């Protein structure tokens, strides 16, 4: 398919065609099966990568038929029972085991505490350092009294309430205000990190670093903190070393480097 047509498809999906162009495109669409197929493909790609779930597709596909044959079988019912039984065994057995093993646990705790304390003073864990060095007060303040509450402010409120999935949905929406974009990406990045979607978080922090803002080096700090959370001390150290005097949290970064 020609690039010109593909450009039209993109413009159509983005709602960027003029009335006249739209009329012509929709006429072409009615007459061309190839164009219809290409439009559907583009729509599916956009939906997938924009995290929009189109659930009711493919229900008549060859794969659906294969799955349905299995789902309607007695084997599928037996499998569900098996999974439920396994769940009782593996998810609950730990609780039972724990309740029956107080003495063993008590003895283990003494040994563990001694070792843990020793290790703690020798080589603090990434988890402990993360807890010690990550503070949400390092994130910029965005909510001002009397200001209109937009998607950024709603996202920050959801973040503060630990509703990270909701926060992500709000914070994915650009603000059209360059000054607020750094704050939006920092909160979005940390929401991803809290959601254990570390790579996405790092991507947001990289965008903060590459922005020409006075706050750009905050991105480095949060990127380093994320690597700490991922238990990747060497990458955390690499990023911390990029901070220079006068940059965000420079002194704190030096202390953290020493501990690492």
């Amino acid at each position, binding site marked *: 398919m020609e690039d010109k047509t593909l450009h039209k498809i993109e413009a159509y999906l983005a709602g960027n065609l003029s009335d006249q162009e739209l009329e012509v495109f929709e006429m072409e669409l009615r007459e061309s099966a190839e164009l219809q197929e290409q439009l559907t*493909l583009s729509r599916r790609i956009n939906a997938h990568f924009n995290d929009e779930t189109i*659930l009711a*597709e493919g229900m008549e596909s060859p794969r659906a038929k294969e799955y349905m044959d299995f789902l309607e079988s007695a084997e599928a019912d037996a*499998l569900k029972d098996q999974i439920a039984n396994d769940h009782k065994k*593996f998810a609950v057995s730990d609780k039972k085991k724990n309740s029956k093993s107080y003495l063993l646990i008590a003895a283990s705790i003494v040994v563990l505490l001694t070792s843990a304390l020793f290790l703690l003073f020798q080589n603090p864990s990434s988890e402990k350092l993360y807890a010690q060095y990550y503070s949400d007060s390092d994130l910029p303040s965005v909510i001002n009294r009397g200001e209109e509450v937009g998607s950024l402010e709603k996202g920050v409120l959801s973040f503060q309430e630990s509703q*990270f*999935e909701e926060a992500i949905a709000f914070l994915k929406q650009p603000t059209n205000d360059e000054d607020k974009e750094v704050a939006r990406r920092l909160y979005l990045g940390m929401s991803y990190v809290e*959601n*254990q979607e570390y790579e996405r978080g790092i991507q947001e922090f990289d*965008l903060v670093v590459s922005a020409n803002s006075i706050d750009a080096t905050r991105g480095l700090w949060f990127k380093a903190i994320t690597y700490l959370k991922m238990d990747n001390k060497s990458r955390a150290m690499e990023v911390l070393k990029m901070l220079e005097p006068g940059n965000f949290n420079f002194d704190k970064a030096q202390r953290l480097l020493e501990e690492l």
Partner: protein
Amino acid sequence: MIKNHPKFDALVNGDPAIMKLLYTKVYPKVVRFVLNNKGSQEDAEEVFQDALYQLIVRAKVKGIELKSTFEGYCLVVCKNLWYQELNKRKKEVRNEGVFELKENNTQELTALLYQDRWDLFEEILQQLTEKCRQLLQAYFNKVPYHTIVKKFSYATENAAFQRVFKCKKQLAQRIQADVRYRDLF
């Protein structure tokens, strides 16, 4: 012949070592993820069991070949199931739940197909060059073109637009050419 990663073969065969691995390494993360995202302990338990069911069905019917770690992939499946559940709940709140009286099998089928499509799209994205991947991720993340120009050092917004267009075209061509695409839609 159905081809599976060995750990999925072990899962299909009910290997206790694999179950133990999943319950010690993945299950606690799923519980934490669901609790952090508007869910309860019961929701997490249900999602985890649904994920196990889905993984075993897919491994039995068509085979699962891993492109990431076993534990990582299982976690992705759990997260996707939870996102679908949250979307379903949102629709119920908006009184759009007309289709909610579906049979269990249909709901399970929907989730199975969703994960297969997810695998296809993400796997093809990984086949592109790193630059294309980063560009497309920025584009789908709705990063404005003027920021893309700076981040990727393009001369103009039009140059960035053309590059994004070419990467998306490559992605679309590869998806369309993949044998799974016809099988799944």
